[in-house]
């Protein structure tokens, strides 16, 4: 019953506003978190046995009649479902205390669950148009969540995000129309088989360009990144965590990788374009991050830079590169989710996001400071944390595929990453305690619990990295490395 990943959050979202009339806080907190916990258990425990015998393809029946509700679950989608439920649960736990002062909590959780359902729906779909529909589901919910604080900045950021996101959707629909016009199909397997048969290179190039623009905007790769540094910092902290940790990866990287590698087949030209986009993003965004004074804005630029690593890894197209890219995607989801949550704790305690105004907060907020340090070092790629292993895999893959120049750039950008994360750590947490913050207290229980959960995962995955790679990452990478055979072969066409 993999449809539960979509339907369960939707049903709970549907009843939440009604529940909110009865109980303003406790029941919405409980329902939303229980839903995400159920999804996490489903993905983590039941997922792997389900796909042990190959990808699961479901065709459901409705009142005894077969309907075309067709879903697919394979190694790649399972990894993404796990990431969504894991970071989704952490952000939702964090919301219990953090969203208290925003009001309208039931409404907030309803939108949040619709966004989760949208992402899960996209991950499970096996058809180009469904990808577009669910991408919009997640996007529409996220516009409202970015603006949830209703302040001037929030509304402006949400509007900018909406505008650029609509442009992305327009390009995606144009790309889908071109593909449908050529093949007469929308189903991944049928499109892959049709494109292989047709071999119409120029039209394929146009469709690829449309998808690249669309997904590039969604993933905020440079030069399509303008919306992200506004949208992500303005949102409430748990939403920033989900947007940076999950949404840009599901609606940008996942969809792009699925379509380019499994449906189109990665051509050398496409591989080169992806690698260049990745390298430009990771270098330029790292420099842009260095100059930021706003803590969350720095994290937002860092997200662009790290997505650059992911795209670079997947773009190499070798099994090792893809595994490295996907592992980094997963690690970054955890670590960036963690960092946006700790930045939320800091913002709530001090009321500012300005790094220059902070200082010495480690004395008052030791747990937040420690978890923030774990997240920072993990993204910067310091051993033995999880981010180190994924970056190592990407760099090894670059060397193996004879791209030593890219490998050197990736290493140097990693040093830059460490630099700006140490700036955050030093300015916010270390040094003399700013007298203004003498009365600051550690964040409330659920907020700390959520950050500790993610920090423990960052350390744990770093220590048990080979186990993680073999159980979760490798099956996902195999699907992508298999190219179009993954869908034409086993997806029943």
């Amino acid at each position: 019953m993999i449809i539960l990943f979509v339907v369960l959050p939707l049903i709970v979202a549907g009843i939440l506003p009604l529940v909110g009339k009865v109980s303003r806080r406790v029941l919405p907190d409980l329902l939303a978190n229980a839903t995400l916990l159920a999804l996490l258990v489903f993905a983590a425990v039941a997922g792997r046995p389900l796909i042990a015998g190959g990808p699961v393809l479901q065709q459901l029946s409705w009142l005894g009649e077969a309907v075309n509700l067709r879903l697919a679950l394979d190694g790649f989608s399972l990894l993404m479902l796990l990431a969504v439920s894991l970071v989704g649960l952490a952000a939702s736990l964090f919301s219990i205390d953090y969203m208290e002062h925003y009001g309208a909590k039931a409404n907030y959780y309803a939108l949040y669950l619709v966004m989760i359902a949208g992402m899960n729906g996209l991950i499970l779909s096996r058809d180009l148009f469904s990808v577009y529909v669910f991408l919009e589901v997640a996007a529409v919910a996220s516009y409202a969540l970015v603006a949830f604080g209703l302040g001037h900045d929030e509304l402006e950021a949400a509007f900018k995000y909406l505008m650029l996101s609509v442009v992305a959707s327009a390009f995606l629909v144009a790309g889908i129309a071109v593909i449908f016009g050529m093949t007469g199909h929308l189903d991944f397997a049928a499109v892959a088989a049709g494109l292989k048969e047709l071999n119409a290179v120029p039209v394929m190039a146009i469709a690829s360009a449309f998808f690249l623009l669309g997904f590039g905007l969604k993933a905020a790769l440079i030069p399509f990144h303008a919306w992200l540094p506004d949208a992500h910092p303005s949102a409430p902290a748990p939403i920033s965590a989900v947007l940076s940790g999950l949404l840009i990866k599901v609606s940008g990287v996942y969809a792009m990788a699925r379509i380019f590698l499994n449906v189109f087949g990665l051509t050398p030209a496409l591989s080169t374009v992806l690698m260049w986009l990745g390298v430009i993003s990771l270098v330029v965004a790292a420099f842009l991050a260095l100059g930021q004074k706003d803590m969350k804005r720095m994290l937002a630029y860092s997200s662009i830079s790290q997505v650059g690593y992911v795209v670079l890894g997947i773009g190499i197209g070798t099994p090792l590169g893809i595994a490295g890219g996907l592992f980094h995607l997963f690690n970054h989801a955890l670590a960036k989710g963690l960092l946006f949550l700790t930045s939320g704790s800091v913002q709530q305690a001090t009321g500012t996001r300005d790094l220059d105004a902070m200082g010495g907060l480690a004395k008052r907020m030791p747990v937040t400071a420690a978890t923030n340090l774990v997240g920072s070092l993990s993204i910067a790629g310091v051993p033995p944390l999880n981010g180190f292993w994924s970056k190592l895999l990407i760099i090894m893959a670059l060397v193996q595929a004879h791209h030593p120049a890219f490998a050197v750039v990736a290493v140097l950008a990693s040093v830059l990453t460490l630099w700006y994360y140490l700036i955050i750590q030093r300015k916010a947490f270390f040094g003399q305690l700013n007298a203004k913050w003498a009365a600051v207290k550690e964040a409330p229980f659920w907020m700390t619990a959520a950050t500790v959960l993610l920090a423990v995962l960052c350390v744990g995955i770093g220590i048990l990295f080979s186990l993680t790679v073999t159980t979760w990452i490798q099956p996902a990478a195999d699907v992508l490395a298999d190219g179009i055979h993954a869908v034409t072969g086993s997806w029943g066409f």
Partner: protein
Amino acid sequence: MILQTALLIGVVIFSVLAILLRDLLKSAIALAAASLLLGIIFFRMNAPYAGVFEISVVAGLITVLFVLTIALTKTGEEVRESRLVKWAFPLVFIAFIVVDALVMKSLLGQVPALAAGAESGSFGEVLWRARTYDLVGQIAVILAGVFSVLALFRKREKHD
């Protein structure tokens, strides 16, 4: 063919007007006109359902909403827009048309004939049988829209 071309040119002209006109009311009406012509094109291309939805929802309902919203707003201070937009948009538009005229014809020649795939069938069959999963998505989009309105138009509570 001539009628078709005239309709298409009409869609483009009214869409451009919708962007360039300074008066919001005129802009909304230009958009409605563009959508009306698009609806007629859908009818002529044998897609009556798309035509009906385009005309009733986009040309009708949404225009009414736009006009109502504009009627509710007051004229405030004139917002100066960047001069760049005035120059950039027509330039990009002309460049697009030139590229379109040069490239599209040869590209269209390479598009293979549309194969009748699994997606063909009557409107009802396609909507309820072939695209059932999208219906779940549609429900989710509507939910997202309703919750967004509830969230964005709620009474503001104090927060920092």
